[in-house]
């Protein structure tokens, strides 16, 4: 569905952001794009959406080169950026203007999502808080029914109840022909939704694995004392004890801790990648 080949890009000369970056994303999955501040998460998403152009290499969505922004490509991709602008109109006016660009737009679904988020449809966009506007945009994005859906930090600015609502609407939106990419720092908000983890660092993709493959090979545990643990690949200590990652030798089925995995991949890249190769 999304195919990035040998992508190189830099905002400034001699300061590359991406160097020969490769990434393949398939339909039917929710990809979690993780990376430190400034690693290039948003820039990568903008390449996919055709908002930034590769200096070298290719970025394609459904065989359309993103940079050409052909109508058939734009009809089937929606991106919810982290910072956005909504015009000063009623929601109805917004729908009438923008929905026709998306042939598969589902107005009924839009109203269902708005209801799930508890936003009255007759409200003016200017009378809304940032979080409410974001919910309108997320509802629109899901209702647009595009093959590729890109969400940049979608839970930023959402209050506590709406994070649960967000998980529900995303779970409802997944289908075999859709590819959803979510970049996030708040992995704990989304860790039960994401089924594939993509980590970007050091100008390239350094980790891309299915959650199932991760828990097949690694075991995530909490131990009171490090003496109880053997073969520890990575550990993080707190007042509650030690969160550890070990190779999964006993075919255990532990629950993935994405924050711990992220830190482990960044700090112990060699030993982690050995296990997956």
């Amino acid at each position, binding site marked *: 569905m999304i195919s990035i080949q040998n992508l190189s890009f830099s905002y400034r000369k001699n300061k590359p952001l991406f160097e020969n970056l490769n990434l393949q994303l398939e339909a039917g*999955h929710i990809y979690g794009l993780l990376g430190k501040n400034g690693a290039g998460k948003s820039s990568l998403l903008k390449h996919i959406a055709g908002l930034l152009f590769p200096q070298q290499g290719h970025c394609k969505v459904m065989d359309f080169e993103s940079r050409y922004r052909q109508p058939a490509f734009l009809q089937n991709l929606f991106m919810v950026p982290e910072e956005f602008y909504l015009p000063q109109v009623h929601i109805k006016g917004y729908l009438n203007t923008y929905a026709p660009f998306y042939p598969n737009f589902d107005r009924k679904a839009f109203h269902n999502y708005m209801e799930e988020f508890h936003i009255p449809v007759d409200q003016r966009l200017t009378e809304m808080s940032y979080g409410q506007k974001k919910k309108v945009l997320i509802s629109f994005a899901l209702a647009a029914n595009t093959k590729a859906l890109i969400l940049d930090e979608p839970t930023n600015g959402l209050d506590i109840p709406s994070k649960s609502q967000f998980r*529900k609407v995303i779970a409802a939106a997944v289908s075999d022909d859709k590819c959803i990419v979510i970049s996030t720092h708040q992995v704990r908000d989304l860790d039960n939704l994401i089924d594939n983890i993509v980590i970007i660092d050091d100008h390239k993709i350094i980790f891309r694995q299915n959650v199932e493959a991760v828990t097949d090979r690694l075991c995530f545990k*909490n131990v009171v004392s490090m003496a109880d643990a053997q073969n520890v690949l990575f550990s993080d200590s707190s007042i509650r004890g030690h969160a550890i990652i070990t190779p999964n030798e006993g075919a255990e*089925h532990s629950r993935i801790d994405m924050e711990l995995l992220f830190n482990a991949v960044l700090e112990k890249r060699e030993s982690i990648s050995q296990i997956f190769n």
Partner: protein
Amino acid sequence: MEFKESQAIYLQIADHMCEQILLDKWKTEDRIPSVRELAVQLEVNPNTVMRTCEYLQQYEIIYNKRGIGYFVAPNAGKKIKQLKKERFLANELPQFFRNIYLLDIELDELKTHYEKYKKSHFR
């Protein structure tokens, strides 16, 4: 549903679904909620629920009618107990044995405790 920290989500969902069957909320030969409905309700990826369904199907707790959905299998309750017993013996019992070994508790001693417990809770 509140997810615990340690166990894989698909297994926690399996426990949740087994509970619905043991509590008779889902009866034998009933169609259970669809993968999508369960995913929305539990706020998880539908692929995870799919994995749970395949797992429960493997143990003949639910079965699949092509194009219609999953149904509670006959004798599901019996199968669930069998599966839970298997998992208890493999996971929790060794932990328990380790504790009683470290605390020098003999099995005979436990027997009186167990009889007392049964009397006060189940009779």
